[in-house]
């Protein structure tokens, strides 16, 4: 699962309000819990998606994976290829393979296996 999808995912449990953002906990017993895969860079899409994502959440999540993005950006940065490339790398190329997502509100844990989070309720 990419960080792009993680940025929009929220907790679906009954009566859980504000279950966002889900905390990522990697499975340390697994040999390959994160993968970096190449993806073609599409400048227009990165700019469009940047206006939709929660940038603070992206900044903090990327930090967890050792990526330090700019703390905040202005409209000038939107034309900077270097900045857009760093966003592209964080959003599209990092794949979480083994671990779990934990709701900050109700503390339910959604396991991630083989890159696929299990969002079924009552797990």
């Amino acid at each position, binding site marked *: 699962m990419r960080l792009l999808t993680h940025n929009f995912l929220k907790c679906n449990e009954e009566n859980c309000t504000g279950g966002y953002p889900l905390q990522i906990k990697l499975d340390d017993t697994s040999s390959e819990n994160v993968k970096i895969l190449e993806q073609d860079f599409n400048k227009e*899409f990165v700019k469009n998606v940047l206006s*939709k994502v929660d940038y603070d959440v992206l900044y903090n999540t990327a930090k967890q994976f050792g990526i330090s993005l700019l703390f905040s950006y202005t409209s000038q940065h939107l034309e900077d290829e270097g900045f857009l490339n760093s966003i592209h790398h964080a959003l599209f190329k990092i794949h979480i393979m083994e671990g779990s997502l934990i709701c900050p509100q109700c503390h339910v844990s959604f396991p991630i296996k083989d890159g*696929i989070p299990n*969002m079924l309720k009552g797990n």
Partner: protein
Amino acid sequence: MASRGRRPEHGGPPELFYDENEARKYVRNSRMIDIQTRMAGRALELLYLPENKPCYLLDIGCGTGLSGSYLSDEGHYWVGLDISPAMLDEAVDREIEGDLLLGDMGQGIPFKPGTFDGCISISAVQWLCNANKKSENPAKRLYCFFASLFSVLVRGSRAVLQLYPESSEQLELITTQATKAGFSGGMVVDYPNSAKAKKFYLCLFSGPSTFIPEGLSENQDEDEPRESVFTNKRVPFRMSRRGMVRKSRAWVLEKKEQYRRQGREVRPDTQYTGRKRKPRF
């Protein structure tokens, strides 16, 4: 595949029907690949996305990622949701481009409001209409699905859901719940006169009403209407019951229709419906 005449939904829930064997057969069946790809193409066409603009889309019941691959080929980014782990495993083997989630659409779509530029679904939504556990209520699950879908879509965007409805009652149940959730739109039927080629696409708009695209047909000069429109407009109660004597047969039939539209269980209409009973009643 299911035996002729028997619908797979009657045999149990989708995660049991689509086990490893079924998933393996599905993804290697060239006829299945062809049909699913063509339906994905038609659904994407009906989405009327802006030209040459890559969008972030949701694929409900993505299964082995056959429809998702088509979205990727068209330059879009997508997230797929499916309830069968076996089907998702096949998708992983195919190295599809989208992100996958294991989840139940009847429990709601777990995303923030205004996430997706559009949504497609190929051959999946009819699975919501059959209750597999005593605790499940199809109307409630359908409403939960549509309400959360309405929320996660960018305002003014669309969802195109290709499905195989079992009956017109089932279709009405589905469209009622979609309307309750705030959607407007209608049904597009392609090739309505061919039993094999006939396909239903439920086109839902999460914003102000727009036109319904024309259904495809071999016979171009057909007068028969192939699309139906439904909106959120409420018919004033007095207008729909105008001229009906209370407790008459016509009134009883209309009341039963109203209950069916709400998704409640209603006895079938027979020659005895609304008949005059003996005085002891």
